[in-house]
C-alpha cells in the first residue's frame, strides 16, 4: 500500500542528494583497495587498452620458454626437466628488468606527477599504508610474472610423470627464490621511480640500475675467474641484484650457480648474501617512507 505521502518522499529522494549511512570500512580496507588497484594497474587492468599491451606481451614472452620446455619434456619423455626451477628467473632477467622498468614508474611516478598523492593522504590512509600498498603491489606483480612460468613447468613435469617429490621440492625452492627476487627488484624499482615524477627518467633509471650493475659484476667476475682468483668471484656477486639472488639460491635453495666456474657462495658467504638482500629490501622501504614524507599535501 503506497500512500501519497510515501510516494512524494520517494520522488524527493530520487531527485535530491542522498546521504550515505552505509559502512565506512576504514584504513585497512583503503589500503587493500590501493593494493589491488595498483596490482591490477601493473598489468594494465582497469586502465586503457594501450597500457595493457606491454605488460601482457612481457607476461606471454615470460611463459613461452616454459611452455616449450614442457612440450619438449613431455614429448621426449625425459626423466627430469632440462631447466631448473631456480634457473628460470636468471635466464629471463632481461624480461623481468624490462617489466619492472615499465611498471614501477607507472605505479608511483604518475601519482607524483599529477599530484594525486595529497588526495590519498587527505583520506584515512597514512604514509605507511601508501608505501606498503604500493610496494606490496609491485612485488606481487613481479611474483605473478616470475612464478607463473614456474607453475607451468611444475604442472608440465607432473604431466610428464616425473618424480613428484623431487619436482615439488624444486618448485618450492623456485617459488622462494622468485619471492625474494620480487621483493628485491620491486623495492629497487620503486625507489628509482619514486625519486622522479618524470616517467621517462624512471624507466631509464631502473634499466640503468639493473643492467649496469649486472654488466659490471659479470665482467669483473669473468676477469677474476680468468685470472684464477675464484675467491673474488663470489664476493663480486654481492653488487648486482640478480647475482645476489643467484648467490642466495645457490647457497640455500639447491640451485646451480650461473657464476663463472659455478663458483657460487657456500652457506657461510650465503648468509652475507641473504643479509644484503634483506638490507636492500628494508632500505628500499625506508627510502620510500622518507620520500613520501616530503610529498604529502
Amino acid at each position, binding site marked *: 500500500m503506497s500512500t501519497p505521502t510515501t510516494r512524494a518522499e520517494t520522488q524527493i529522494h530520487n531527485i535530491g542528494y542522498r546521504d550515505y549511512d552505509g559502512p*565506512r570500512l576504514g584504513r585497512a580496507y583503503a589500503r587493500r583497495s590501493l593494493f589491488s588497484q595498483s596490482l591490477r594497474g601493473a598489468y594494465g587492468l582497469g586502465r586503457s587498452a594501450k597500457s595493457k599491451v606491454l605488460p601482457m606481451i612481457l607476461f606471454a614472452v615470460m611463459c613461452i620458454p616454459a611452455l616449450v620446455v614442457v612440450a619438449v619434456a613431455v614429448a621426449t619423455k625425459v626423466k627430469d626437466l632440462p631447466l631448473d626451477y631456480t634457473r628460470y628467473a636468471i635466464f629471463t632477467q632481461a624480461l623481468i628488468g624490462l617489466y619492472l622498468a615499465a611498471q614501477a614508474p607507472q605505479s608511483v611516478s604518475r601519482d607524483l606527477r599529477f599530484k594525486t598523492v595529497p588526495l590519498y593522504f587527505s583520506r584515512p590512509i597514512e604514509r605507511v599504508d601508501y608505501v606498503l600498498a604500493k610496494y606490496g603491489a609491485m612485488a606481487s606483480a613481479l611474483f605473478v610474472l616470475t612464478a607463473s612460468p614456474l607453475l607451468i613447468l611444475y604442472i608440465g613435469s607432473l604431466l610428464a610423470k616425473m618424480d613428484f617429490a623431487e619436482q615439488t621440492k624444486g618448485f618450492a625452492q623456485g617459488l622462494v627464490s622468485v619471492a625474494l627476487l620480487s621483493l628485491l627488484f620491486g623495492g629497487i624499482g620503486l625507489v628509482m621511480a619514486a625519486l622522479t615524477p618524470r616517467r621517462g627518467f624512471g624507466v631509464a633509471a631502473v634499466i640503468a640500475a639493473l643492467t649496469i650493475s649486472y654488466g659490471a659484476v659479470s665482467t669483473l667476475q669473468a676477469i677474476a675467474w680468468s685470472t684464477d682468483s675464484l675467491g673474488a668471484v663470489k664476493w663480486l656477486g654481492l653488487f648486482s641484484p640478480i647475482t645476489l639472488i643467484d648467490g642466495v639460491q645457490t647457497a640455500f635453495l639447491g640451485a646451480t650457480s650461473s657464476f663463472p666456474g659455478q663458483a657460487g657462495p657456500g652457506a657461510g658467504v650465503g648468509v652475507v648474501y641473504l643479509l644484503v638482500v634483506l638490507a636492500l629490501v628494508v632500505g628500499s622501504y625506508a627510502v620510500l617512507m622518507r620520500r613520501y614524507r616530503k610529498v604529502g599535501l
Partner: protein
Amino acid sequence: MIATESLSKRFPTGVPPAKRGGVTALDRLSLDIGPGVTGLVGANGAGKSTMIKILLGLSPATEGRAEVLGLDVATSGTAIRERVGYMPEHDCLPPDVSATEFVVHMARMSGLPPTAARERTADTLRHVGLYEERYRPIGGYSTGMKQRVKLAQALVHDPKLVLLDEPTNGLDPVGRDEMLGLIRRVHTDFGISVLVTSHLLGELERTCDHVVVIDGGRLLRSSSTSDFTQLTATLAVEVTDTDTHPDGTAALRKALTAAGIAIHGAPEGTADGLPGAGHVLLLEATGEETYDIVRDTVADLGLGLVRMEQRRHHIAEVFRPEAAAAQPQEAQAR
C-alpha cells in the same frame, strides 16, 4: 565544526640553528567555526593552506590545539579524514582515466565498499554537473569540468565537512559563479558544512554565511557575512547625460551629496584615462535605503540609470580600515 585554540605553526628555515626563528605561518589563531558555509580569506601566504593541513591532521601544530567535528587533530587524524572531504588548490587529476573511475577509486580510498562507491560516484558526479562526459578521460576536460571532478572526489564519501582550497582558481566569471552556486548548494541541499578559502573577499561575500579573515597567520576578523556587507558595500553608479544635465555624473554627485550619501573621492578610472572615465560614481551604501535614495535621485534628475552594482572589494580595503579610509582622503586632497 572547527575550533582552534591559540594555534601556531612555525616552519624552520634554512638558517643556522642559532638564528632559527623560522617562518611563522600561523600565529596564536583562535577560531570557532560553526555549521554552514564559512569563508577563509587571506592573501597568498596568509596561512590558509597551512591551516587546512593542520585541520586534516597531516601537519602537527607547533603550539595550541585544534578540533574538527569534535575530534582532536593531533590524535584522531584518521577518524577526521574519514568524515572530511578535501579539494586541493592545485591540479590533482590523472589525465588518462575517466572521471568515474577516478572518483570510484577515491571513494574506496575513503572506505566505501565497492558497490556503494559506484553508486555514490554516479550520484555525486551528477550533482556537480557532469553527465555523459564522465566516461571520457579527464585529460580532455576543460578547467571548469576538472574543478567539478575535484569537488566530486571531496564529496563522494558524504563527509560532514568539506575543505575547499581556492575552488574558483582559474575559472572564468561564468565558471566562477557556477562553482560558487554549487558550493552554496553543498550546504543548502546536501547538508554538508563548507570551509572555503579564497583571496577574493567579494566572491565569498555572496556565498558564505560567515567570513574569517587571516593575514600573516593572525586572525584579522571573523564575523557573519551580513555584517560585512552592511559595513562595506560600495555601490558603483553610472548615469547618462541629458540636455538639462550635460554632465549627468556631476549633477548626480551634487544631488547625492546633498542627500547625505558619502561619495568616494575620485570617480573610478580617472587615473587610468580609460574610456568612460569619470562616469562611474562610487558611493558608500549604508543599507537598503541607499539604493532607494539613488533610484529616486536619478529619477528626479531625469537621468538614465546605466548601472548600479555592488563592487567587489580587495581584502586590503575592507580589513585595513585605516588604509581604506586614507585612500579617499588622499584622493580628495589632490
